[in-house]
């Protein structure tokens, strides 16, 4: 009830004040709340312009994909179409034609309708988002394009919906890089945020690990044994051109500095595993850690002022935070035998990590102040390599809960855990990109 009032007030203020409001002022969904209630959402089949067989088919796919994509966020409870008092062939889809009590009676608080036209290989789609209780249209967009771009068109509207409801860009423009050994060697693959269209990126025919996206998603760094030693490669994805850091010892765990052409990585040429700051072409700028023993797996705070990393300086692997301006290092984790694989949330407030618990590994989040460690996974056996979605609402990770290691996604609070994709072999080391690319 209270949310509804908030929604009403917020929508009214949007209408009264216009679109110049800053994002934070019209957040309907507060994604920092752990147990947020899912909003009941109805996405009926789209109304078709001609009603031809081909049009019906691609229109149905579009509605399904829109429904699945919004469901992916974890914010909504998608309502069963079987209960809808709505016939897309007979009923209209605009504000004046809709009968809102038909939607409130099935529990829908939000409704998305579509008007779909297929003309040769061109499509025109009108998409609208309604608040059913207020009987108001809150979004209305018309898209035209090629049928082949239908996926991107739908995702553009989904981004509008999420931006309206949360004030953030969501995840629909992001990709996930991961490691798969389906060819017999670990190689790097890239898929869309939802596991769509996984493609192999590397053909190193050698162990390849630790993919890391630059902020602009144009560069991917990784470690590979393709020349025998675990070397670091920094690849320009568009030009397929690479630079290499190939020092004696290990050259591993790259992490790009936010918004910069620089990255942190662990090198051991000095005889000790230390974290260094490198240029985007692989030249050492400076050393960032100085401690005897293992220092590995850096992750940047979103403002680029701090790194979290793993060190065994206290005797066991634990996570530390270093303030790069002051040089001050604080230990972050104290519970658990071994805590590794830190991943700093893009929202800045939390760090996800992997904790070894007996014979199992589980994913936790902890405040950057070291307060409130929360266990997010419980399924045996190994849940590893957490990586945040660009909006900080979801976490990708690997798990062997169904046998082989696969990539899974859950919300930032550990709910809605689901497998992202099935491929030959095992999949590990997922890394979520920022929002930049068409999917």
């Amino acid at each position, binding site marked *: 009830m209270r949310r509804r009032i908030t929604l009403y007030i917020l929508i009214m203020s949007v209408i009264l004040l216009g679109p110049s409001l800053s994002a934070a002022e019209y957040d309907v969904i507060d994604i920092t709340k752990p147990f947020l209630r899912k909003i009941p959402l109805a996405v009926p089949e789209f109304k078709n312009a001609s009603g031809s067989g081909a049009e019906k088919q691609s229109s149905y796919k579009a509605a399904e994909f829109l429904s699945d994509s919004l469901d992916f966020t974890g914010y909504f409870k998608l309502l069963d179409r079987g209960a809808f008092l709505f016939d897309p062939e007979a009923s209209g889809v605009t504000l004046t034609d809709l009968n809102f009590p038909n939607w409130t009676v099935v529990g829908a608080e939000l409704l998305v309708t579509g008007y779909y036209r297929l003309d040769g290989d061109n499509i025109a789609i009108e998409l609208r988002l309604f608040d059913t209780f207020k009987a108001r249209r809150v979004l209305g967009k018309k898209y035209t394009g090629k049928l082949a771009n239908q996926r991107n068109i739908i995702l553009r509207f989904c981004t509008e919906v999420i931006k309206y409801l949360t004030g953030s860009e969501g995840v629909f423009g992001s990709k996930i890089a991961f490691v798969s050994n389906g060819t017999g060697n670990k190689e790097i693959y890239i898929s869309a945020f939802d596991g769509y269209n996984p493609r192999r990126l590397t053909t190193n025919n050698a162990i390849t690990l630790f993919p890391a996206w630059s902020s602009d998603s144009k560069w991917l760094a990784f470690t590979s044994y393709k020349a025998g030693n675990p070397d670091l490669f920094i690849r320009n994805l568009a030009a397929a051109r690479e630079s290499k850091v190939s020092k004696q010892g*290990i050259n591993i765990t790259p992490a790009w500095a936010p918004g910069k052409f620089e990255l942190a990585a*662990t090198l051991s040429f000095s*005889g000790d595993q230390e974290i260094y700051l490198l240029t985007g072409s692989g030249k050492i700028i400076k050393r960032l850690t100085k401690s005897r023993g293992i220092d590995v*797996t850096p992750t940047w705070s979103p403002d680029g002022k701090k790194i979290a990393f793993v060190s065994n300086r206290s005797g*066991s*692997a634990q996570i530390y935070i270093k303030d790069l301006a002051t040089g001050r290092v604080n230990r972050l984790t104290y519970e658990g035998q071994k805590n590794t694989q830190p991943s700093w949330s893009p929202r800045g407030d939390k760090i996800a990590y992997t904790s*070894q618990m007996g*014979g199992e590994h589980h994913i936790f989040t902890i405040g950057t102040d070291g307060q409130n460690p929360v266990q997010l996974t419980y399924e045996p056996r190994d849940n590893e390599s957490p990586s945040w979605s660009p909006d900080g609402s979801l976490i990708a990770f690997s798990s062997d809960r169904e046998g082989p290691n696969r990539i899974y996604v859950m919300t930032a609070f550990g709910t809605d855990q689901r497998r992202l994709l099935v491929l030959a072999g095992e999949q590990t080391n997922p890394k979520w990109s920022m929002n930049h690319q068409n999917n």
Partner: protein
Amino acid sequence: MQKKTWLLIALLLVIVGLLFTVGCQKKAVSQAKAPAPAPAPAEQKAAPKPVAKPPAGWNISQNNIYFEFDRSTLTPMAQDTLMRHAAWLRENSNATATIEGHADERGTNEYNLALGDRRADSAKAFLVDLGIAASRLTTISYGEERPLCMDQTEECWAKNRRGHFALN
């Protein structure tokens, strides 16, 4: 008189050896001081007794050394094996080897790659201390990427926490 000459020669040899191995000596020192409350207090600096001859049929590539969980310090048994390796390397003075550092699958692969790196370095530093030229030994870490044994048992994990000597 003769004793003195021998001493001088020995000293010279030590100095030359030090010159050649200065880079790795650093590693050995850092290794010995690593914060490791492991039950292997002997460590590298305990002046191990050199073994004159390796046992008959000894081959370094067929004798792995093993490590304790999450440790890169050398156990007394590993030191024993390495002394035989040193004797073998002295007898086979043209042989060069790559020391592979491996970890068991517990822990995550980033950390285990670093751990394997330290394990390979410990073994190399020990051999260099026994007079094997650093230039004959290279190291590589495979972390948990190349397990020998795939079961979920302590016995299996122990087999995987190894330093392997591959002859080049």
